[in-house]
């Protein structure tokens, strides 16, 4: 699980060459595209405010069963590949309407790089996941990097084949919850990372990596 410093340089170079990630904005359901509220190249913002209480930039209006729904940006970046040809047309679910070219933030770079440094709990099946209620409450209270887990602790609840199955932690040793890589109730492909863990004793090492990235990638 260790990450070599040289390897870290390679990864950082890779991100520097292309510090963007493309997010597709797909229709969440069927309906008619009634209005585009952005233009190609426009800058958009994700939810903001101290409590993320201010919604993101309005992108387009999707109407279904007389409900006009404004679809908003979940991340900041620039609009590209806007499908203006779909105006007033009926679209299916999961149709890509536009893309957001998102500049990676320091935090995101850290998060991406740590994927190769952390012990990852991966999705055992393509299914929907939520943190186990006990763990979620603990993280809410204590925050990330502080909550400890050990063998036998309930980590997640997987909704799979119409059943709810608890997922337990099976490694020896004490780990800290370092990062969470999924959104609850969304379909996660098998093998995708769900939770990033750090063995308790390796926390200082990990923090060294993080500060190294911070140096290389100022805010």
């Amino acid at each position, binding site marked *: 699980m260790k990450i070599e410093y040289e390897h870290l340089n390679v990864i950082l170079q890779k991100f520097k060459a292309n510090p963007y990630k493309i997010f597709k904005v797909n229709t969440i359901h069927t309906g008619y595209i009634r209005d585009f509220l952005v233009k190609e190249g426009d800058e958009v913002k994700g939810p903001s405010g*101290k*409590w993320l*209480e201010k919604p993101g930039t309005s992108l387009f209006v999707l109407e*279904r*069963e*007389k*409900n006009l*729904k404004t679809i908003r940006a979940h991340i900041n970046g620039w609009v590209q590949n806007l499908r203006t040809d779909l105006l007033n047309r009926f679209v299916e679910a999961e149709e890509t309407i536009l893309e957001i070219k998102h500049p990676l933030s320091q935090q995101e770079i850290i998060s991406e790089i740590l994927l190769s440094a952390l012990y990852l709990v991966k999705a055992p099946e393509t299914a929907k996941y939520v943190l186990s209620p006990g763990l979620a409450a603990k993280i809410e209270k204590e925050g990330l990097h502080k909550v400890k887990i050990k063998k036998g602790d309930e980590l997640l609840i997987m909704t799979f084949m119409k059943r709810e199955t608890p997922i337990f932690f099976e490694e020896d040793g004490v780990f800290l919850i370092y990062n969470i890589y999924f959104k609850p*109730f969304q379909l996660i492909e098998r093998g995708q990372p769900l939770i990033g863990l750090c063995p308790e004793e390796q926390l200082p090492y990990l923090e060294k990596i993080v500060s190294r990235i911070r140096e290389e990638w100022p805010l």
Partner: protein
Amino acid sequence: MKIELYKTLKNLLETATYIRDIKGEDFFEITSLINKISEVYDNFYQYEPSYLENFVKKTKEQLDILLDQGEKTLTPYEIVKITRHPQRFTLQDILENVYDSYMELGGEGEINIDPAVVCAKAMLVRKVGDEIFFHQVMVIGHEKGHGEEFREGGSAKPWGNEKALRYMKMAETEGIPIHFFIFTPGAYPIEDYPGAAQQIAKNLYHMAKLRVPTIAFISEGGSGGAEAIGLADMRLMAEKGYYSVISPEGAAAIEAKIKDGRPPRELVEKCARSLKLTAKDNLRFGTIDKIIPEPPLGARRKDCEFFKRLKIELIRATDEVILQTRSIKFLRKYAVSKQETENFKYYVNWDLDEDEIEILIENRYKKYRKMTQWAVHENKTLFKSFFDLGHTISVKLKNEINYKILKQGQKTFKKFLNELTSESTLLLKPVSDPIKTVYNLIVGKKTGPKLITPSLQDDDIPTYVSPLALEDKTITCPQSEKYSCPDLWVPDLYGEFCGVCPNCGYHFPLEYKWYLNNIFDKNSIRTFNDEITSTNPLEFEGYAEKLKAAREKTGLNSSLISFEAKIGGISLIAVMLIAEFRQGTVGVAEGEKFIRAIELAKLTRRPFLALVHTTGGIRIHEGTIGVVQMPRCTMAVRDYVDEGGLYIVVYDNNSYAGPVASFLGSAPYQFALKSTRLGFAGPRVIRETTGQDVPPDYHSAENALKRGHIQGIWDRRELRKKLFTALLTMGGKNLYYRW
């Protein structure tokens, strides 16, 4: 000699600055006068003493003229500025100058749970002829400080008001009168425990029956914050004080519908005029009892004459309150004696015996019961009044005879259950079944009653359909992002789902008629006092039209409806504050209806339910006539609860400010429907007062429960069942259906 002059000059400079601050820079070239005085003051030692003497004399004369001129043209907004001026006297000055000795309790300057609230044990000396008598009093009030930031301008935090209550109770234990001093722009509007609104409500509830005489003196009476220590037997008010439902700036922001920033100056001044917040106005309205005169442009911290006067007035007021509990004859004699000087002709013992305490509390009830009643507008024919009286009496008799014990009531219950089951539908099941269960549990029957099978006729369909449901469209649940709720078909949502998202439990607002039709037994509602009408007692500009529009829109005469109804066969009195009528704001009509309803509940020994569809607070257009509904109604609440009734409040949608801080927040049982927001002040006011933004869920029902402000969160779909259980299991012994 020169030092004296220097001091005087300094005072003159202060006075001039004061005049400028109050009257504005353009007032009779006050600015150039200030510059002149400053010039002399700064270079004091370069001037000849004779010049200085002359200058001081001339300037003093000039300033006196200006003070008089300023007094003559004094506007309400200038009065507001006077009360807020750092040179105005504060409670600390009163403690120093009015009382003969004092000891501050539970705080010292900044070392204090809340420096905005000062409590002190104080002593007053009364000279009668050659004799000297000592009076102990408890002094509780706001301390604005002379510009010290930690005093928050006299805005009491929730725990500051709690501290005030603690010392009220101490005075009660010791049997000494309380002098309240109100110097507050309003309460500090935060929800941290014990919560701004809830603590004010608790204070009012307790003050309603404080067993000692209470005198209040108002300099700056900012709405709910003032009421927290304002329910007194006698209310005095400084001539240059203001007592208002809201600050003129706040009113202007609301009138101009401003979310951020400052409202225009002209609008602020107009609002100050419209709010009728001066001492004269308040005396006219009967919201205060007496005005204490002040020098031109108001008393400042060095006005010894004023303090002398205040001392006499405080002793007299206390005397009067006490004498009213004794023989009238003595009081008359006392009144005739004209206590205008420091040498009193009488000594009045401020200790009360048990009988006198009872009279004291009774007098207090009567005083507030009568307050602002002149403003109640009621189109009632003589016949109707007669009928209502007859009805009240007959209801009382009927209850006494029929329902003294549940045994009799059982029959009614069974009948109710049968009716319910026979006409019910599956949709109603979650509502009716638990009722039966509770009934069986309480009656302790081994097997349930034999039930008639529901028929499958058309009366399965509930007779009331929300008008919101009559549209073929879908809407998005506001919490869909968080809980992935599917879009809701409007006829389902506003029909069977009772306006609740079945996925996440979010409660969409529903019209008030929904509650009337779905919570109470069919055809059991009978409204009363519908004729009591909201009017425009302050003649607030443009308000009559708004009221008219509200009346036309709703067909109601005020925002509060009072009615008798049944739940599961149990008869109760209920009131409902309605969002559609001026956002459920409370004025004198609503207050009077509330009191009459709760009095009827007391008389007929029925439970009392307050449904809060929404309340936006005290209606600002009624000024302090609205504000005093807080103590008035809370008084009635206290009386009803002490008599052994059951008072339940259920909040829905948005409930804020005055009503929550008084007659609603003082209920022993307060429940909120899910998705309710409740608290003291909205985010804008909090930001303006505290400089802090609050999280979006700051006023949520969950947080209110977490902070201990309410007793539970209910689901609208279970409201009828919850209420029924509450009626059977909660409340005092004086309910007609109790054993």
